[in-house]
């Protein structure tokens, strides 16, 4: 029987090792992926969620909250700065 060329003889084990490593890597990745939910991937969570459609009442309530907090915060900061003196 004719022996295969030396170059092929040397390459074949390397190729099979690389292939086995690739398959092992893929298997590991598959196992890892199995434990995450689809919407848990970074690629998914980095996509923004759409803006919520708030009712007019909710928008008005949030505006009232904004005004309330700004006013009270200013009062507390004024008091705090006054106490420092």
């Amino acid at each position, binding site marked *: 029987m004719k022996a295969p060329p030396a170059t092929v003889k040397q390459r074949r084990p390397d190729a099979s090792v690389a292939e086995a490593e690739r398959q092992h890597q893929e298997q590991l*990745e*598959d*196992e*890892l*992926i*199995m*434990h*995450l*939910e*689809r*919407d*848990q*991937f*970074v*690629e*998914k*969570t*980095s996509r*923004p*969620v*759409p*803006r*919520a459609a*708030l009712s007019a009442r*909710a928008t008005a309530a*949030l505006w009232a*909250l*904004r005004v*309330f*907090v700004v006013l*009270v*915060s200013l*009062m*507390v900061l*004024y*008091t*705090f700065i*006054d*106490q*420092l003196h």
Partner: protein
Amino acid sequence: MAAVEASTASGLALPPLSDEDAARSQDRSRVHDARHHRRRWRLLWLLVGPGILAMLGENDGPSMIAYASDGAQYGLGFFVPFIPLLFAMAYVCQEMCMRVGAVTHRGYGELVLQRLGRAWGWFGAGDLTLTNLVTLVAEFVAIRVGLAYFQLDAGVAVVLGLALVVFTLSGGRYWRWERIVLGMALFNGLFLLAAILVKPDVGAVARSFDFSPFPGGSFNTLLLLLASTIGATVTPWMIFFQQSASADKGMTPRDVNHGRWDTAAGAVLASIFGVGALIAGAALMSHHGSGIQGFAGAGFPEALKHVAGAAAGDAFAIGLIEAGAVAILTISASTAYAAGECIGVSHSFNSSPRNATLFYAANIGVALVAAAVILIPGAPLLSIALNANVLATVLLPVSLVLMVVLANDRGLMGAWANKRSTNVIGIAVIAFVGLCGAAYGIDSFLQTTHVIGS
């Protein structure tokens, strides 16, 4: 669980696996194994963390000094049942954070920004950064008080705090960070030890659960007490932290029940240890305890040493160092989560510093700025520390309202949205916190501007 099955069923391609996904998936594989083999205790061990850390993190240096100060000034009574009541309120808020994080896999900051608009998102982040910075200064002051008991100075407090932040960040894994901080947080139990060492009258402690005697003093003093005690129990950073940490941990809707146990355990432990600090402080009531400046010198630990022995003083001092240190780690983390979420860059302990540079820089940077403040000669540290809890209370209603809006968002939460009973309790909590904060803010302002007398 569902990713591969879902992709097979629907024929859709899976997204690429990042290093952050790979790290999170390894943690999830252990949860999957524990659930599959019905190892209940191991499953609980794997899933606890964000809830206990949020609650014990809030039992921070200023809070424990505030509880001890309440005890020293008013003794047992109103505050013994009031502290557990506040932690029950905190549970209602934190359970929502955990649930939203587990269901959406997103942090609070990014959801507010994307779902409710940039103005609210940046307002929330600004509110958080301000209150966190002020609170972090107070944490370093609390560590300094604990170290002063052992004749160590502010420089040691700065080095210790910053070294801890860098050390816990060094692993590049959420799991490692969480377990180190969780291990440290259990030393919050030293306040319970301090309470036992002062040999309190157990009967008097039991009798105080009828909320009496009610603290006396002026209306403004009462409002300050309520506002600072509420600020010592529920704060904006806890909301940002627990939701983001739950998402970073990789929790899913299947883990929500365990998340509830985690949050409840945190609330129970924090209220027991908080009451411990109060009881230890109450031992000083008949020894001119009301005159102790909690944030000056060695404060309460030194006073306890003279009244109840060196062991009680040691336990309280080490407890203060621990409380400050744990809070520095959790509060820095909440700032880093908020910064990453609002700017829209990688924000996970599972990412490497190269991939999440802003997250790591914000984590160390905010602690660095706070540390620098306590080294400034003549800085008004006492005023900052005393006002930190009040400022947090005043700004808290915004964070809570937005949290309730998110938890009710069926587009995000689906079947996991708030039930009517949760909304009723949640709105009652917000109304109570908002009224106390606003009443104190308005009353103090009117007194400062001499519109009303003190």
